[in-house]
């Protein structure tokens, strides 16, 4: 992708996450120290700042990348109030009573696939396909900061107020973005996430 950067395409999101984890392991071990950015997305991973992009591209396709499930790590707990305006609608799409929606969400293992849209906005995967819901037909002009939303295969929380078309099911007070903290994002790519019921 341009000069000195390679966009590695994988078959699916899980393989992209696994490749991202492998790239981070190799960078931590001192490989390709010159690399400026390793950026995962839905099914691709960008590696930018390579001296030898052709050599890297040839090497990466031969790597044995372990599946992401084997790369464990502590799950980060994020307390949520299930008070979003779209709880009823999402529960209806799931064909469950609205009262059961929190148990389904808190019982799901999520993982940060990638960040984008806004600083600290994490795209979380983990919902099984039958729980994927479409975006709202008309986006809201202002989604409050801390809102937990669902769209397609993803769950995500808005670090700050912005327009958005995701189905809102809850709110968190967790500090999703703090530039004074390192890392500034609470949820970085590869992080495992469990939602818990916030005690009001």
């Amino acid at each position: 992708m341009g000069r000195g950067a390679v966009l590695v395409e994988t078959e699916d999101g899980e393989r992209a996450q696994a490749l991202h984890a492998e790239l981070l392991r190799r960078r931590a071990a001192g490989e390709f120290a010159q690399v400026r950015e390793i950026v995962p997305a839905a099914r691709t991973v960008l590696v930018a700042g390579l001296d030898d992009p052709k050599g890297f591209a040839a090497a990466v396709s031969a790597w044995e990348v372990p599946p992401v499930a084997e790369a464990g790590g502590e799950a980060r707990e994020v307390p949520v109030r299930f008070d979003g305006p779209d709880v009823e609608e999402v529960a209806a799409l799931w064909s469950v009573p609205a009262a059961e929606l929190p148990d389904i969400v808190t019982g799901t293992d999520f993982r940060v696939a990638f960040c984008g849209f806004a600083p600290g906005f994490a795209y979380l995967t983990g919902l099984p396909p039958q729980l994927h819901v479409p975006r709202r037909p008309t986006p809201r002009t202002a989604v409050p900061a801390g809102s937990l939303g669902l769209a397609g295969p993803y769950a995500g929380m808005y670090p700050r107020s912005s327009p958005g078309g995701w189905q809102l099911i809850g709110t968190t007070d967790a500090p999703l973005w703090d530039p004074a903290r390192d890392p500034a994002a609470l949820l970085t790519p590869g992080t495992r996430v469990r939602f818990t019921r916030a005690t009001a």
Partner: protein
Amino acid sequence: MSGVTVVRAGALTTLQDLGRAGYAHLGVPRSGALDLPAHRLANRLVGNAEGAATLETTVSGCTLRAARPLLAAVTGAACAVRVDGRPAAWGAPVRVPGGALLEVGAAAVGLRSYVAVAGGFAVEPVLGSRATDLLSGLGPAPLADGDELPVGAGRGAAAAVDVLPYASAGGELVLPFLPGPREDWFEPGAPAALVTGEYAVSPASNRIGLRTDGPALRRAAGREGELPSEPMVPGAVQVPPDGRPVVFLADHPTTGGYPVIGVVPEESLPAAAQSAPGTRIRFVALRSGRPEL
């Protein structure tokens, strides 16, 4: 730390530096000066390190009042420079007495001028950078009339400059690009159509991207939708559903769902940032930089 007061902020004046590289995986755009060579040069002229913050003006310049004697330099878009009303040099160190007005005039050639002062503008950095990121809102807000900007202590000596060569934008903007990664999302002739099409800089261009007016690039059959989000780079030529290519500049989003037909090397982006709306664009296909697998 006393520095300058903004007397006239101009159309859009922001603090810029080398940006926030290395945080794209958190959704943070690179940001930083659009014309990096001009930013670096302004700093060198006043004896600053290249990463010191400068002001990036847009079209209409700006006016500052110095709270104490300052050494300043204006580079980038050529413009009239005045100190307390008297003509002063563009592209050279200029002494501004305490209390004096530094006027950076409207751009005569180009769009964005850079104003450096010895010591640099010492606002608080965010993630290691003082750059204003207009996409994500990181960094200081664009300047407003009456703002006070702190200035650090000057450290180096002013550069001794007699002549400043400046590659001024000609009648057209030449944008070389490496095809890919998603040229297969377009009709087979699309890269050629980009090269031969009559494109011009759109007035809707901004720090996020250079938008174009011209013929729409057509998608290949069956490739009408969006891609799953993928990472973007500066210079990526993204083609939204209206078919008119957008060349991503410093404040571009870190991921996107529209296909990228090619990538303009970063050394060609300063010229893009200095090209006024209506400027004719000539896209030139470079040999594919795509690694063969």
